[in-house]
């Protein structure tokens, strides 16, 4: 299968006046195939968003990426030249649109930047996309201002806007976190449907393993800027090998009633990773041994569809 995104040894570094201040992404390898949904999961601050932004080449101020990002078949070392073939949708649909322009106007701006197209054709194309994402009465949505629509409708419009660019890769950064459960579900269903229809690859970022389990084909669990476990969703969810993945799964209250304790992971994600040696998870890990503070565990295959970065993997 062809990869629409492949990332090799991606690092994101923050520098301040020439000195390195932080390295929140530390050597990530990822592949997304056409028509596939890859889930990127981890707690807040693990570097999920930075990985997504780095793939697009739109890092925040002061950040620099190293490593190789290949979109489609053309390796793109530099900035957002990937242009038409990647699109990103962010968490908060309420703030992603400009409140003073109609949606039609904002979608036209995107369309005209990517394609030479006449006004009337452009409008027809936008309306077609708005109905494609399941928005009823797309004509009205076209004329609406962002505040006139609900959060779920705006998120659909965001997806329509992303589709206008005919992406080969769609990056979704917490696309449903700001939405109600029923609306969130509809959005996830929509994404699932669209990728089958258009065959683009999806990188779905979320802190909720439940969402990942529902819609993704493969998953990469991120901790402190590293992939610590990856594989097919079935393999990883049914047989999590890394203590962190197990912690995340144990934290889900789904299906539990009171009396049963949740297995919360103690502590928090480390903020700065520069002076780190050994396994980044060891302060929170109940299986840690002395070697964990000395040796940096590498991602190693544990099965046909699974790889884990943990020194104690065999013992668990």
């Amino acid at each position, binding site marked *: 299968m062809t990869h629409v995104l492949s990332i090799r040894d991606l690092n994101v570094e923050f520098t301040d006046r020439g000195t390195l201040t932080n390295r929140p992404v530390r050597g990530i390898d990822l592949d997304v195939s056409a028509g596939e949904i890859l889930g990127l999961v981890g707690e807040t601050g693990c570097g999920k968003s930075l990985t997504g932004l780095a793939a*697009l080449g739109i*890092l925040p101020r002061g950040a620099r990426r190293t490593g190789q990002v290949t979109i489609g078949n053309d390796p793109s070392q530099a900035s957002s030249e990937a242009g038409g073939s990647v699109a*990103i949708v962010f968490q908060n649909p309420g*703030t992603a649109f*400009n409140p003073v322009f109609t949606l039609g106007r*904002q979608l036209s*701006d995107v369309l005209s930047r990517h394609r030479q197209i006449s006004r009337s054709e452009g409008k027809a194309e936008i309306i077609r996309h708005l109905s494609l994402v399941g928005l009823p009465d797309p004509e009205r949505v076209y004329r609406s201002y962002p505040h006139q629509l609900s959060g779920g409708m705006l998120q659909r419009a965001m997806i329509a*806007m992303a589709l206008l660019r005919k992406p080969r890769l769609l990056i979704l950064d917490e696309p449903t976190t700001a939405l109600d459960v029923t609306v969130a579900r509809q959005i996830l269903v929509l994404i699932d449907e669209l990728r089958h229809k258009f065959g683009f690859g999806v990188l779905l970022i979320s802190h909720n393993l439940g969402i990942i389990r529902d819609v993704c084909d493969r998953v990469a669990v991120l901790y402190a800027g590293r992939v610590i476990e990856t594989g097919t969703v079935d393999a990883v969810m049914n047989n999590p090998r890394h203590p962190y993945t197990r912690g995340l799964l144990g934290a889900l209250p789904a299906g539990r009633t009171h009396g049963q304790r949740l297995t919360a992971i103690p502590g928090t994600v480390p903020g700065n990773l520069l002076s780190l040696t050994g396994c980044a998870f060891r302060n929170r890990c109940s299986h840690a041994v002395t070697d964990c503070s000395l040796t940096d565990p590498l991602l190693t295959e544990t099965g046909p569809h699974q790889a884990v970065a943990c020194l104690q993997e065999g013992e668990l």
Partner: protein
Amino acid sequence: MSPTTQIPAPTRSGPAGEQATLKPIKLLKQTLGRDRLAAVGAMIIVLVVILAVFGQWLAPFPDQGMGATNASARNLAPNAWNWLGTDQLGRDVLSRIIMGANPALTISAVVVAAAALIGIPLGAVAGYCGGWLDEALMRVTEIFQAFPPLLLAMVTVAILGPSLTNAGIALAISWWPWYARLVRAEAKSLRERSYVEAARAMGIPQLLIISRHVLRNCMTPILVQATVDIGTVILAAGSLAFIGLGTQPPLPDWGLMVAEGRGLIFSSWWIATFPGLAIFLAVLGFNLLGDSLRDLLDPRQVKR
């Protein structure tokens, strides 16, 4: 501006959230560190304060500064002895400017303090409580604000009689509504904050909520406003003196000096020009600092 290429704002503690937790001193340090104009403003302010405090020891002719005349040295152009020349009564202009700093700064500080003392509590109560109290207060401030401050001050001074103190009272009367409105607007938005709701849910008395949760969190904009206002009041007090409604001769006052030298502007330009320049610099200093503080506070206005 396509939303698909925006960098999302960091979710935890955005710029506004961070600012809200800065202490004024730290804020000042930050402003000076990265903004040259603010540093210039601060230097001017420090100079004015030094002159105001140590003026009588720094002035070459302190007695002339306070009004003693010297008939043998009238209208001298700037020279090695009188650096900025002398006025029509033979007084050293430099000494009078130096000694004029104290009354200028005192009156503006007192006026701003008085205006803040009246306006802040009224605005806080009105903004927090809302309702008819708020309505009534806002109508009153509107009436005050409908008059130009200088006009209002002139009327007051005309009734109370001209003097520096009365000019101060007059200015404070016309200034407090601005503080009341500023604080009211802040209080109105702070009232909706989660921590205020939490305090109400805990049964904390209203006055404590207003002072602890509302006032404490609108101190920074007040500080900015006060900084700019000190400069503005120096100008206003000078204007009142200029038209004879403020400081009375022979006391040193920049506005008064400009008035005294006005008639001789073509023959002895230094008499009016240097005090005018002093007013200009002082106002500029406070404005520069105040504006930079404001820019730093308001993320929408930050210059890139």
